C-alpha cells in the first residue's frame, strides 16, 4: 500500500483510465524499447570487435572502415545515442504517462520522431566509419547527422513536456523531477556543445574543455538522472512501501544537479591548473548526493531486499545498478584528485568511466525497467514470458559489465605503473603486458551482447503472444 500526498480533487475526475494511458504509450515506447535494445546489441558487437583489435592488430586490418580509430567511436556513440538515449526517451515517456496519469501527446508523432532519431544515428555511425568523425569524445557524429538528431529530439522533448504539463496527477513524484531535469538538460548541453564545437568554434584547448564538459554532463546528469528516475520508481513499487524520505530525495536531486555538471574534467592536461583541480574537487563532492540518494533507496527497501530480489527480475537489475552507481562515484572520487588522478591519467582506467556509466548504471537500470514495461505494454503482465531468458539477460549483463570494468581497470593500472616512471619500457609493459586484461574486456562485451540478445528474444516472445492473442488463439 502506498500512502501518497496527492491532492484529492484532480485525480479521479478527469484522469484517463490506465488502459487508455497504456494504449497511448504502446506505439512509441515499444518502438524506443525495441530500437534501443537493438542498438545495444549492435554497439556491444562493435565494441567487441574494436577491443579485439587492441591486442590482435591484424584482426580486420587493411580496411579503413573498420580501423580501431573509427570502430571505437562508432561503438561508443551508437551505445550512447542509439541505446542509452533512446531507452531514456522511452522510459521518460512511460514514466510521465504513468506517474502523471495522462495519455501521451501525439504517439504517432513521437514514433515518427523516433524513426528520424534512428535514421540520424545510423547516418552518424556510418559517417564515423567513413572517416567524418568530429574528433570530440561522445560528440563524434558529423554535422549532417548531428543536426537531424537535434531536430528529432526537439519533437520528442517538446511532446514529452507537453504531456507532462497536461498531467492530471499534479504531484510530481521524485522520478519525474529527474525525468524533467534530464529532458531539459540534454538539449541545452547538446546545443551549447554543438554550437561551440561545430558552429562558432572556440579555439584550441577550449574545444577539449567544452567536449569534456558536454560528455560529463551527458553521463553524469542526463543518463544517471534517468537511471535514478527508474530506481526511484521501481524500488518502492516492487517492495510495496513508500519512499523513505521526501527531503532526502529533494536534497539529493538538487545537489546532483548542482555538482554533477562540474565533474569529469579532472584528467585534462594541457589546460590551466585550476580546471582539473576544481573538477577533481567536484568529483569528491559528488559522493554526497549519490550517497544520499542511494541511502534513501536502501532505507525504502530495507528488510525486504532478499524477498524482492527473489521475486522480481526488475528489482535485481535496479539494485545492481544502484550499487554500481555508488561504486563508480567512489571510484571517480578516489581517482579524480591528486596522485590517483595523475597515475590513471591517459589510461584505460579513466576511459572505463564511460562504459561503466552507460552500460552499467544506466544500462542495467534501463534494461530492468524495460523488462517491466515491455510485458506491461504487450501482454499486460508484469513479467516477460520466459523467466530463463530474464535470468540470462540479467546475469549476462552483470557479468559482462563487471568483466569490462575489471579488465579496463586493471589494464589501466598496469599502464599507469609504466607511465609513472621513465625506466619501464613502454612497448613491452604497457602494450603487450595488458593483452590479458583486454581479452577479459572482449569477453565482457560479448556477454553484454548476449544479454541484449536474451532481452530481444524475450521481447519477441511477448510480441508473438500479443499477436496471437490479437488474431485469436490461446494465450
Amino acid at each position, binding site marked *: 500500500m502506498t500512502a501518497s500526498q496527492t491532492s484529492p480533487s484532480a485525480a479521479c475526475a478527469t484522469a484517463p483510465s490506465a488502459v487508455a494511458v497504456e494504449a497511448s504509450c504502446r506505439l512509441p515506447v515499444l518502438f524506443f524499447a525495441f530500437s534501443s535494445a537493438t542498438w545495444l546489441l549492435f554497439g556491444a558487437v562493435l565494441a567487441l570487435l574494436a577491443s579485439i583489435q587492441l591486442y590482435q592488430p591484424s584482426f580486420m586490418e587493411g580496411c579503413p572502415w573498420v580501423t580501431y580509430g573509427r570502430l571505437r567511436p562508432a561503438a561508443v556513440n551508437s551505445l550512447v545515442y542509439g541505446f542509452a538515449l533512446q531507452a531514456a526517451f522511452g522510459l521518460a515517456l512511460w514514466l510521465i504517462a504513468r506517474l502523471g496519469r495522462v495519455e501521451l501527446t501525439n504517439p504517432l508523432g513521437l514514433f515518427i520522431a523516433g524513426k528520424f532519431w534512428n535514421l540520424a544515428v545510423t547516418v552518424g555511425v556510418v559517417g564515423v566509419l567513413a572517416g567524418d*568523425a568530429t574528433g570530440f569524445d561522445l560528440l563524434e557524429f558529423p554535422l549532417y547527422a548531428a543536426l537531424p538528431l537535434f531536430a528529432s529530439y526537439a519533437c520528442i522533448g517538446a511532446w514529452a513536456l507537453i504531456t507532462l504539463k497536461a498531467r492530471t496527477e499534479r504531484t510530481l513524484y521524485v522520478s519525474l523531477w529527474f525525468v524533467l531535469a534530464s529532458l531539459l538538460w540534454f538539449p541545452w548541453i547538446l546545443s551549447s556543445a554543438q554550437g561551440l564545437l561545430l558552429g562558432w568554434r572556440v579555439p584550441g584547448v577550449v574545444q577539449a574543455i567544452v567536449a569534456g564538459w558536454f560528455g560529463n554532463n551527458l553521463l553524469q546528469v542526463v543518463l544517471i538522472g534517468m537511471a535514478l528516475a527508474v530506481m526511484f520508481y521501481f524500488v518502492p513499487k516492487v517492495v510495496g512501501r513508500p519512499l523513505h524520505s521526501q527531503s532526502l530525495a529533494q536534497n539529493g536531486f538538487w545537489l546532483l544537479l548542482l555538482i554533477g555538471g562540474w565533474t569529469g574534467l579532472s584528467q585534462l592536461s594541457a589546460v590551466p591548473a585550476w580546471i582539473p583541480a576544481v573538477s577533481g574537487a567536484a568529483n569528491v563532492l559528488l559522493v554526497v548526493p549519490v550517497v544520499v540518494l542511494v541511502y534513501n533507496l536502501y532505507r525504502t527497501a530495507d528488510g525486504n531486499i532478499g524477498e524482492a530480489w527473489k521475486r522480481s527480475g526488475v528489482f535485481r537489475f535496479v539494485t545492481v545498478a544502484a550499487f554500481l552507481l555508488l561504486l563508480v562515484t567512489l571510484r571517480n572520487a578516489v581517482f579524480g584528485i591528486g596522485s590517483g588522478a595523475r597515475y590513471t591519467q591517459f589510461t584505460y582506467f579513466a576511459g572505463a568511466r564511460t562504459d561503466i556509466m552507460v552500460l552499467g548504471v544506466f544500462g542495467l537500470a534501463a534494461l530492468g525497467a524495460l523488462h517491466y514495461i515491455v510485458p506491461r505494454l504487450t501482454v499486460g503482465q508484469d513479467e516477460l514470458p520466459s523467466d530463463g531468458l530474464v535470468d540470462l539477460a540479467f546475469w549476462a549483463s552483470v557479468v559482462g559489465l563487471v568483466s569490462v570494468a575489471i579488465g579496463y581497470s586493471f589494464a589501466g593500472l598496469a599502464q599507469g605503473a609504466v607511465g609513472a616512471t621513465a625506466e619501464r619500457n613502454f612497448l613491452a609493459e604497457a602494450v603487450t603486458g595488458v593483452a590479458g586484461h583486454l581479452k577479459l574486456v572482449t569477453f565482457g562485451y560479448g556477454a553484454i551482447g548476449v544479454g541484449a540478445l536474451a532481452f530481444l528474444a524475450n521481447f519477441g516472445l511477448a510480441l508473438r503472444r500479443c499477436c496471437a492473442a490479437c488474431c485469436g488463439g490461446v494465450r
Partner: protein
Amino acid sequence: MNHGPLIAAGAFVSLAFSWAALVMAPQVQLGSLAPAPIPNTSDVHPANRPGLAAQGAEVYRSLGCYQCHTRQVRQDALLYGARLVDRGSNASTINLELPGSGRTNLVNFNLLIALAKSRADLGITPVAVPPVLAADTNLAPVLKEFATELKLLKQFDDKARIVRSTSKTVNELAATLPVEVLERTGPDEAERAVKLINDAGGKAELVIYNLGPDIERGWGARRSVARDFVNDSPVLLGSLRVGPDLACLGSRAPEKFAAPWKPASTNLTAEIEQRLLDHLYNPRLVAPASTCPSAKYLFATKQPEQRFAGEPLQVPGSDKPVYPRHEARALVAYLLDQRLDVGLPEAPVTKSAAPAKVAAAPAKP
C-alpha cells in the same frame, strides 16, 4: 516541488553555474591566446602548419589516431637552478661557487652569517668575506678550517642539492664551465643565487628543470600548454595512451622512440620520415610488439600517375616497392611538424649545458 517550471528554472540555474565555470571562464581566459614570438628570431610558436601538414591533420582525425595516441606531454614538477657561466672579473671569489670547491659558497654565505648571528650556541666563527685563493690552490687542507660550518651547511645543501666533492683543484673545476652551482630548488633561492654571483663579478644564469616521467622518456622538453594548440581545430588532444605520445615526434632523438634505432646518417629528419612511412605501412616491421593497425590502404602498389608523387617506399622484407599516397605523406608531414622544444612564457625551457640528472624524487620548492 510539484511545480514543473520551478524544477525547470532550478535545472537551468544549475546548468548555468557549471557552464559559466567550465565553458565561459576558460574561453575568457584562453580565447585570445595567440602564438608567442620566439626570442631572437622572427618566428612564432606554434607556427602555422604548412599545407601538407595541415592536410595531414585531417588524415589524423579521419583515421581516428587520436583514439590511441595523446599529443600532450605532462610534467610533474618545475624547479629552478643557477648555472655559473663565466668566472668574470672576480675569478677567485667566484671559484668558491664551483661545486666541489668545498668552501662556503656565496649562495649560502649570508645563510651562514645569519646562522652565526642567531645561534650563538652553535659556535660558528663569524666569517666576513671569503679570503682570496690562488688559482691552483689545493682545497682539501683549506676545508679543515671550516669543518663545523660545512657540516651544518650540508643540511641546507642537501635540501638544495648542491653538488659537492672535495678532490679537485680550482683550475680543474674551472675547466668544466658552464656548471650548475644550484640544482632543483625554488625560484627565489635560484634567483638570489644568480644575483649574488652576478653582483660578485661573475656571470650566472637561471636554469629551469622540467621534471616528469614523460619528459625523462624524451617525449618532450617541457609540458604542453594551451598555447601549443591555438592553431589546431579540431584540437585532437587524445585522452588515452594505447600507443606512445606523439607531441614531439619532430624533435625526438632516435633512442627515445618506443622502438629505438641507431641513426645511420646525419639527416635525422629524413630517417624519421622513412621510419614513419614504414610504420604506417606495417607497424610490426618497425616495432614488433606494436598493436597499431596497419594503414596499407594509404599506399598504392602501382606507380601513381602524378609526376611529383615522391620516392617509392622500399619495404624491408619485400622486394616490391610501394608508393605512398598523398594521405600517407601528409600524415607523416603532420607527425613531423609536432615540436615541443621551444620555450614559452608559461612553460620555459633552458638549453642544457650539462644534462640534467634523473632524480629519484625531486625536491619540492
